[in-house]
Protein backbone atom coordinates (compact mmCIF):
# COMPACT_ATOMS: atom_id res chain seq x y z
CA UNK A 1 0.00 0.00 0.00
CA UNK A 2 1.26 3.45 -0.91
CA UNK A 3 0.65 6.68 0.95
CA UNK A 4 -0.49 9.03 -1.84
CA UNK A 5 -0.07 12.22 0.20
CA UNK A 6 3.70 12.40 -0.15
CA UNK A 7 3.52 12.69 -3.94
CA UNK A 8 1.64 16.01 -3.84
CA UNK A 9 3.79 17.91 -1.28
CA UNK A 10 6.25 19.28 -3.83
CA UNK A 11 3.37 20.52 -5.95
CA UNK A 12 1.74 22.26 -2.97
CA UNK A 13 4.96 24.18 -2.24
CA UNK A 14 5.93 24.88 -5.84
CA UNK A 15 4.85 28.53 -5.84
CA UNK A 16 6.83 29.44 -2.74
CA UNK A 17 10.11 31.17 -3.51
CA UNK A 18 12.00 30.41 -0.29
CA UNK A 19 11.19 28.13 2.64
CA UNK A 20 12.98 28.98 5.88
CA UNK A 21 12.86 26.72 8.94
CA UNK A 22 13.67 28.50 12.20
CA UNK A 23 15.31 25.77 14.18
CA UNK A 24 17.41 24.88 17.23
CA UNK A 25 18.72 21.86 19.04
CA UNK A 26 17.29 23.17 22.29
CA UNK A 27 13.86 24.28 23.48
CA UNK A 28 13.29 27.63 25.13
CA UNK A 29 15.78 29.59 23.03
CA UNK A 30 13.11 31.76 21.39
CA UNK A 31 12.52 30.00 18.06
CA UNK A 32 8.83 30.88 17.98
CA UNK A 33 9.50 34.53 18.78
CA UNK A 34 12.23 34.72 16.12
CA UNK A 35 10.12 32.87 13.53
CA UNK A 36 7.02 35.00 14.11
CA UNK A 37 8.92 38.30 14.20
CA UNK A 38 10.92 37.32 11.12
CA UNK A 39 7.70 36.49 9.24
CA UNK A 40 6.11 39.79 10.31
CA UNK A 41 9.27 41.74 9.34
CA UNK A 42 9.33 40.18 5.87
CA UNK A 43 5.65 41.09 5.48
CA UNK A 44 6.41 44.68 6.51
CA UNK A 45 9.04 44.74 3.76
CA UNK A 46 6.34 44.06 1.17
CA UNK A 47 6.82 40.30 0.85
CA UNK A 48 4.03 37.75 0.69
CA UNK A 49 4.73 35.48 3.64
CA UNK A 50 3.34 32.33 5.20
CA UNK A 51 3.99 31.12 8.75
CA UNK A 52 3.62 27.43 9.60
CA UNK A 53 3.77 26.40 13.26
CA UNK A 54 5.31 22.95 13.17
CA UNK A 55 5.72 22.68 16.92
CA UNK A 56 2.59 20.52 17.11
CA UNK A 57 2.86 19.50 20.75
CA UNK A 58 3.74 22.97 22.09
CA UNK A 59 2.49 25.56 19.59
CA UNK A 60 2.89 29.18 20.63
CA UNK A 61 3.08 31.37 17.51
CA UNK A 62 -0.70 31.92 17.69
CA UNK A 63 -0.21 33.47 21.14
CA UNK A 64 2.57 35.76 19.87
CA UNK A 65 0.35 36.81 16.94
CA UNK A 66 -2.71 37.24 19.16
CA UNK A 67 -4.62 34.95 16.80
CA UNK A 68 -8.17 34.23 17.87
CA UNK A 69 -11.14 32.60 16.16
CA UNK A 70 -9.18 31.85 13.01
CA UNK A 71 -10.05 28.92 10.76
CA UNK A 72 -8.75 27.84 7.37
CA UNK A 73 -11.09 27.89 4.38
CA UNK A 74 -11.86 24.71 2.44
CA UNK A 75 -10.94 25.16 -1.21
CA UNK A 76 -9.41 22.10 -2.87
CA UNK A 77 -7.68 21.50 0.45
CA UNK A 78 -7.22 24.12 3.15
CA UNK A 79 -6.39 27.77 2.54
CA UNK A 80 -4.70 29.28 5.61
CA UNK A 81 -6.37 32.35 7.11
CA UNK A 82 -4.52 35.67 7.05
CA UNK A 83 -3.46 37.51 10.19
CA UNK A 84 -1.38 40.71 10.21
CA UNK A 85 -0.71 40.07 6.51
CA UNK A 86 0.61 36.54 7.15
CA UNK A 87 -0.91 33.34 5.81
CA UNK A 88 -0.94 31.33 8.99
CA UNK A 89 -1.25 27.56 9.51
CA UNK A 90 -1.18 25.74 12.84
CA UNK A 91 -2.51 22.56 14.41
CA UNK A 92 -4.47 24.76 16.83
CA UNK A 93 -7.26 25.01 14.23
CA UNK A 94 -7.93 21.33 14.87
CA UNK A 95 -7.07 20.85 18.55
CA UNK A 96 -7.81 24.31 19.99
CA UNK A 97 -6.23 24.98 23.37
CA UNK A 98 -6.31 21.30 24.29
CA UNK A 99 -3.14 19.22 24.63
CA UNK A 100 -2.09 17.20 21.56
CA UNK A 101 -0.01 14.33 22.99
CA UNK A 102 1.66 13.03 19.84
CA UNK A 103 4.40 10.47 19.45
CA UNK A 104 6.96 10.76 16.67
CA UNK A 105 5.00 8.78 14.07
CA UNK A 106 1.91 10.89 14.77
CA UNK A 107 3.91 14.12 14.38
CA UNK A 108 5.16 12.82 11.05
CA UNK A 109 1.68 11.84 9.89
CA UNK A 110 0.14 15.17 10.89
CA UNK A 111 2.99 17.03 9.18
CA UNK A 112 2.53 15.07 5.94
CA UNK A 113 -1.24 15.60 6.09
CA UNK A 114 -0.93 19.37 6.50
CA UNK A 115 1.77 19.66 3.83
CA UNK A 116 -0.45 17.66 1.47
CA UNK A 117 -3.71 19.56 2.00
CA UNK A 118 -2.57 23.15 2.67
CA UNK A 119 -2.92 25.39 -0.38
CA UNK A 120 -0.34 28.13 0.24
CA UNK A 121 -0.48 29.59 -3.23
CA UNK A 122 2.20 32.07 -4.30
CA UNK A 123 4.51 33.25 -1.51
CA UNK A 124 7.89 34.97 -1.35
CA UNK A 125 8.68 33.22 1.93
CA UNK A 126 7.28 30.41 4.03
CA UNK A 127 8.69 30.61 7.56
CA UNK A 128 8.42 27.41 9.60
CA UNK A 129 8.56 27.44 13.38
CA UNK A 130 10.24 24.13 14.23
CA UNK A 131 10.04 22.01 17.36
CA UNK A 132 13.43 21.64 19.10
CA UNK A 133 15.92 18.92 18.32
CA UNK A 134 16.66 16.55 15.49
CA UNK A 135 13.54 14.39 15.60
CA UNK A 136 10.71 13.58 13.23
CA UNK A 137 9.84 17.12 12.13
CA UNK A 138 13.31 18.09 10.91
CA UNK A 139 13.88 14.67 9.33
CA UNK A 140 10.59 14.96 7.43
CA UNK A 141 11.43 18.44 6.18
CA UNK A 142 14.81 17.20 4.95
CA UNK A 143 13.00 14.27 3.31
CA UNK A 144 10.24 16.22 1.61
CA UNK A 145 11.65 19.72 1.00
CA UNK A 146 15.16 19.38 -0.33
CA UNK A 147 15.44 23.11 -0.96
CA UNK A 148 14.56 24.19 2.58
CA UNK A 149 16.92 26.65 4.31
CA UNK A 150 17.63 26.67 8.03
CA UNK A 151 18.01 29.67 10.30
CA UNK A 152 19.42 28.43 13.60
CA UNK A 153 18.65 30.03 16.94
CA UNK A 154 20.80 29.65 20.04
CA UNK A 155 21.25 31.50 23.31
CA UNK A 156 24.61 32.47 24.82
CA UNK A 157 24.38 29.31 26.95
CA UNK A 158 26.94 26.62 26.31
CA UNK A 159 24.13 24.09 26.76
CA UNK A 160 22.12 25.54 23.89
CA UNK A 161 25.11 25.84 21.59
CA UNK A 162 26.15 22.26 22.31
CA UNK A 163 22.84 21.01 20.88
CA UNK A 164 23.10 23.46 17.97
CA UNK A 165 26.40 21.84 17.00
CA UNK A 166 24.68 18.46 16.66
CA UNK A 167 21.91 19.95 14.55
CA UNK A 168 24.43 21.73 12.33
CA UNK A 169 26.40 18.49 11.91
CA UNK A 170 23.22 16.70 10.77
CA UNK A 171 22.21 19.46 8.37
CA UNK A 172 25.71 19.77 6.89
CA UNK A 173 25.95 16.01 6.51
CA UNK A 174 22.64 16.05 4.63
CA UNK A 175 23.89 18.99 2.52
CA UNK A 176 21.11 21.30 3.67
CA UNK A 177 21.51 25.06 3.32
CA UNK A 178 22.02 26.92 6.61
CA UNK A 179 21.46 30.68 6.35
CA UNK A 180 23.28 31.23 9.63
CA UNK A 181 23.03 31.41 13.40
CA UNK A 182 21.36 34.08 15.55
CA UNK A 183 22.25 34.45 19.21
CA UNK A 184 19.09 35.23 21.15
CA UNK A 185 18.66 36.66 24.69
CA UNK A 186 22.12 38.23 24.65
CA UNK A 187 22.95 40.02 27.93
CA UNK A 188 26.62 40.91 27.58
CA UNK A 189 29.27 41.57 24.97
CA UNK A 190 30.87 38.11 25.01
CA UNK A 191 31.65 36.84 21.53
CA UNK A 192 31.92 33.12 22.25
CA UNK A 193 28.93 32.08 20.16
CA UNK A 194 30.01 34.31 17.28
CA UNK A 195 33.49 32.80 17.12
CA UNK A 196 32.17 29.23 17.60
CA UNK A 197 29.70 29.82 14.76
CA UNK A 198 32.53 30.97 12.51
CA UNK A 199 34.54 27.90 13.56
CA UNK A 200 31.68 25.77 12.26
CA UNK A 201 32.00 27.56 8.93
CA UNK A 202 28.63 29.26 9.35
CA UNK A 203 27.55 32.87 9.09
CA UNK A 204 26.84 34.65 12.38
CA UNK A 205 23.71 36.67 11.62
CA UNK A 206 23.76 38.78 14.78
CA UNK A 207 22.71 38.87 18.40
CA UNK A 208 19.29 39.74 19.74
CA UNK A 209 19.28 41.51 23.11
CA UNK A 210 17.51 40.02 26.12
CA UNK A 211 14.45 42.20 26.57
CA UNK A 212 12.48 41.89 29.81
CA UNK A 213 9.67 43.94 28.22
CA UNK A 214 9.08 41.48 25.39
CA UNK A 215 6.25 39.81 27.34
CA UNK A 216 4.17 42.98 27.08
CA UNK A 217 4.36 42.76 23.27
CA UNK A 218 3.03 39.20 23.09
CA UNK A 219 -0.25 39.25 21.21
CA UNK A 220 0.45 42.70 19.73
CA UNK A 221 2.33 42.41 16.45
CA UNK A 222 2.84 46.18 15.91
CA UNK A 223 4.32 46.57 19.38
CA UNK A 224 6.46 43.47 18.87
CA UNK A 225 8.14 44.97 15.81
CA UNK A 226 8.89 48.13 17.82
CA UNK A 227 10.74 46.31 20.61
CA UNK A 228 14.53 45.96 20.62
CA UNK A 229 13.99 42.30 19.68
CA UNK A 230 11.68 43.22 16.80
CA UNK A 231 14.06 45.87 15.46
CA UNK A 232 17.04 43.55 15.59
CA UNK A 233 15.21 40.70 13.84
CA UNK A 234 13.98 43.15 11.18
CA UNK A 235 17.58 44.23 10.64
CA UNK A 236 18.70 40.59 10.33
CA UNK A 237 15.87 40.00 7.85
CA UNK A 238 16.92 42.97 5.71
CA UNK A 239 20.66 42.35 5.72
CA UNK A 240 20.79 38.57 5.64
CA UNK A 241 17.60 37.35 4.02
CA UNK A 242 16.11 40.05 1.79
CA UNK A 243 19.56 41.12 0.60
CA UNK A 244 20.28 37.64 -0.73
CA UNK A 245 19.53 37.28 -4.35
CA UNK A 246 16.10 35.68 -4.65
CA UNK A 247 16.35 32.11 -5.62
CA UNK A 248 14.31 30.82 -8.51
CA UNK A 249 13.01 27.66 -6.97
CA UNK A 250 9.80 27.24 -8.87
CA UNK A 251 9.12 23.69 -9.99
CA UNK A 252 10.36 20.33 -8.85
CA UNK A 253 13.70 19.78 -7.19
CA UNK A 254 15.60 16.56 -7.69
CA UNK A 255 15.34 15.46 -4.09
CA UNK A 256 11.75 16.59 -3.61
CA UNK A 257 9.01 13.99 -3.80
Amino acid at each position, binding site marked *: *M*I*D*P*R*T*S*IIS*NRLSKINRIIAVSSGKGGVGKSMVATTLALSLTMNGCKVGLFDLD*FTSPSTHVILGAQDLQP*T*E*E*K*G*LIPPTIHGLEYMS*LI*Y*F*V*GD*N*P*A*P*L*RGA*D*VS*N*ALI*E*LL*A*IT*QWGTLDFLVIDMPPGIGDAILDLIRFIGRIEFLIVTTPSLLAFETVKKQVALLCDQKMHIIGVVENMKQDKARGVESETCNLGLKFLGDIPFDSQIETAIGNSSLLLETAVGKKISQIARTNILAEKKKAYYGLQSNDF
Partner: protein
Amino acid sequence: MKLTNATFTKERTYSLLFRNILLKLHKEGYFMHEWALAEAILSSAKQIAEKERVTTVTEVTIRVGELQQVEPPILRFALTQMKQGIFEKTKFRILKAKSTLKCRVCGTAWQYNTKKVDKATSEAIHFVPEAAHTYIKCPKCGSPDFEIIAGRGVWLEDLKGVK
Protein backbone atom coordinates in the same frame (compact mmCIF):
# COMPACT_ATOMS: atom_id res chain seq x y z
CA MET B 1 -30.08 -8.67 -9.28
CA LYS B 2 -30.40 -8.31 -13.01
CA LEU B 3 -31.35 -4.78 -13.93
CA THR B 4 -34.30 -4.32 -16.22
CA ASN B 5 -34.38 -1.34 -18.54
CA ALA B 6 -36.78 0.40 -16.19
CA THR B 7 -34.65 -0.06 -13.06
CA PHE B 8 -31.53 0.87 -15.03
CA THR B 9 -33.15 4.13 -16.12
CA LYS B 10 -34.25 4.83 -12.55
CA GLU B 11 -30.77 4.12 -11.14
CA ARG B 12 -29.18 6.26 -13.83
CA THR B 13 -31.54 9.11 -13.01
CA TYR B 14 -30.57 8.91 -9.34
CA SER B 15 -26.92 8.75 -10.31
CA LEU B 16 -27.20 11.88 -12.47
CA LEU B 17 -29.20 13.64 -9.77
CA PHE B 18 -26.54 12.75 -7.17
CA ARG B 19 -23.79 13.95 -9.52
CA ASN B 20 -25.57 17.27 -10.04
CA ILE B 21 -26.02 17.73 -6.30
CA LEU B 22 -22.30 17.05 -5.75
CA LEU B 23 -21.37 19.45 -8.54
CA LYS B 24 -23.50 22.15 -6.93
CA LEU B 25 -21.96 21.50 -3.50
CA HIS B 26 -18.49 21.51 -5.10
CA LYS B 27 -19.16 24.95 -6.61
CA GLU B 28 -20.38 26.19 -3.24
CA GLY B 29 -17.17 25.09 -1.57
CA TYR B 30 -18.23 21.91 0.20
CA PHE B 31 -16.19 18.69 0.41
CA MET B 32 -13.02 20.38 -0.76
CA HIS B 33 -10.74 18.35 1.45
CA GLU B 34 -11.55 15.27 -0.64
CA TRP B 35 -10.35 17.20 -3.68
CA ALA B 36 -6.87 17.59 -2.20
CA LEU B 37 -6.74 13.88 -1.38
CA ALA B 38 -8.04 12.91 -4.84
CA GLU B 39 -5.33 15.06 -6.38
CA ALA B 40 -2.71 13.29 -4.24
CA ILE B 41 -4.08 9.87 -5.30
CA LEU B 42 -3.88 10.75 -9.01
CA SER B 43 -0.41 12.25 -8.59
CA SER B 44 0.82 9.12 -6.81
CA ALA B 45 -0.87 6.77 -9.29
CA LYS B 46 0.66 8.72 -12.18
CA GLN B 47 4.14 8.34 -10.70
CA ILE B 48 3.64 4.57 -10.37
CA ALA B 49 2.20 4.28 -13.88
CA GLU B 50 5.14 6.20 -15.36
CA LYS B 51 7.62 4.07 -13.46
CA GLU B 52 5.92 0.88 -14.72
CA ARG B 53 5.51 2.35 -18.23
CA VAL B 54 1.73 1.96 -18.09
CA THR B 55 0.05 3.98 -20.84
CA THR B 56 -3.58 3.46 -19.80
CA VAL B 57 -4.61 2.95 -16.20
CA THR B 58 -7.67 0.69 -16.12
CA GLU B 59 -8.27 0.39 -12.39
CA VAL B 60 -7.10 2.07 -9.21
CA THR B 61 -7.97 0.58 -5.84
CA ILE B 62 -8.08 2.98 -2.92
CA ARG B 63 -8.51 2.11 0.74
CA VAL B 64 -10.09 4.76 2.98
CA GLY B 65 -9.84 4.50 6.74
CA GLU B 66 -12.86 5.08 8.89
CA LEU B 67 -11.00 7.43 11.22
CA GLN B 68 -10.62 10.18 8.62
CA GLN B 69 -14.24 9.73 7.43
CA VAL B 70 -13.52 10.40 3.79
CA GLU B 71 -16.79 9.78 1.98
CA PRO B 72 -16.27 7.32 -0.90
CA PRO B 73 -18.97 8.87 -3.17
CA ILE B 74 -17.40 12.31 -2.78
CA LEU B 75 -13.88 11.01 -3.30
CA ARG B 76 -15.04 9.09 -6.39
CA PHE B 77 -16.77 12.20 -7.69
CA ALA B 78 -13.61 14.26 -7.19
CA LEU B 79 -11.50 11.60 -8.92
CA THR B 80 -13.81 11.37 -11.92
CA GLN B 81 -13.95 15.16 -12.23
CA MET B 82 -10.15 15.34 -12.29
CA LYS B 83 -9.25 12.30 -14.35
CA GLN B 84 -7.64 12.88 -17.71
CA GLY B 85 -4.85 11.50 -19.90
CA ILE B 86 -3.82 8.03 -18.74
CA PHE B 87 -6.77 7.98 -16.32
CA GLU B 88 -9.55 8.64 -18.85
CA LYS B 89 -10.67 5.00 -18.79
CA THR B 90 -9.86 4.34 -15.13
CA LYS B 91 -12.34 2.64 -12.84
CA PHE B 92 -11.88 3.64 -9.21
CA ARG B 93 -12.49 0.98 -6.57
CA ILE B 94 -12.86 2.53 -3.15
CA LEU B 95 -12.76 0.16 -0.20
CA LYS B 96 -13.34 1.03 3.43
CA ALA B 97 -11.15 0.00 6.35
CA LYS B 98 -12.36 -0.22 9.92
CA SER B 99 -10.41 1.99 12.26
CA THR B 100 -8.73 0.11 15.07
CA LEU B 101 -7.02 1.90 17.92
CA LYS B 102 -4.82 0.21 20.52
CA CYS B 103 -3.89 1.63 23.90
CA ARG B 104 -0.15 1.65 24.54
CA VAL B 105 -0.69 1.74 28.30
CA CYS B 106 -3.15 -1.12 28.95
CA GLY B 107 -3.20 -2.86 25.56
CA THR B 108 -6.93 -2.48 24.95
CA ALA B 109 -7.87 -2.46 21.26
CA TRP B 110 -11.12 -0.87 20.12
CA GLN B 111 -12.85 0.41 17.04
CA TYR B 112 -13.43 4.10 16.49
CA ASN B 113 -17.12 4.85 16.31
CA THR B 114 -17.84 7.96 14.26
CA LYS B 115 -21.36 8.16 15.67
CA LYS B 116 -20.10 8.71 19.20
CA VAL B 117 -18.27 12.00 18.54
CA ASP B 118 -19.68 15.48 18.02
CA LYS B 119 -19.50 17.29 14.68
CA ALA B 120 -16.61 19.63 15.58
CA THR B 121 -14.44 16.75 16.81
CA SER B 122 -15.35 14.67 13.81
CA GLU B 123 -14.37 17.52 11.48
CA ALA B 124 -11.01 18.09 13.22
CA ILE B 125 -10.18 14.38 12.89
CA HIS B 126 -11.34 14.47 9.27
CA PHE B 127 -8.69 17.08 8.41
CA VAL B 128 -5.88 15.78 10.65
CA PRO B 129 -6.58 12.29 12.04
CA GLU B 130 -3.85 12.76 14.68
CA ALA B 131 -6.21 15.26 16.34
CA ALA B 132 -7.83 12.04 17.64
CA HIS B 133 -5.18 12.04 20.38
CA THR B 134 -6.71 15.25 21.68
CA TYR B 135 -10.30 14.04 21.73
CA ILE B 136 -10.29 10.27 22.13
CA LYS B 137 -9.12 8.25 25.13
CA CYS B 138 -8.77 4.55 25.81
CA PRO B 139 -12.22 3.29 26.88
CA LYS B 140 -10.62 1.15 29.59
CA CYS B 141 -7.86 3.24 31.22
CA GLY B 142 -8.50 6.74 29.82
CA SER B 143 -5.07 7.21 28.24
CA PRO B 144 -4.63 9.34 25.09
CA ASP B 145 -1.50 7.29 24.31
CA PHE B 146 -2.89 4.91 21.70
CA GLU B 147 -1.73 3.69 18.35
CA ILE B 148 -3.85 3.94 15.21
CA ILE B 149 -3.16 0.42 14.01
CA ALA B 150 -5.63 0.38 11.10
CA GLY B 151 -7.97 2.63 9.16
CA ARG B 152 -6.27 6.00 9.55
CA GLY B 153 -6.50 7.74 6.16
CA VAL B 154 -6.29 7.20 2.44
CA TRP B 155 -4.05 4.58 0.82
CA LEU B 156 -3.38 3.61 -2.76
CA GLU B 157 -3.77 -0.17 -2.66
CA ASP B 158 -3.52 -1.35 -6.25
CA LEU B 159 -3.17 -0.11 -9.79
CA LYS B 160 -3.96 -1.99 -13.00
CA GLY B 161 -3.17 -0.84 -16.48
CA VAL B 162 -2.07 -1.53 -20.02
CA LYS B 163 1.55 -1.09 -21.10
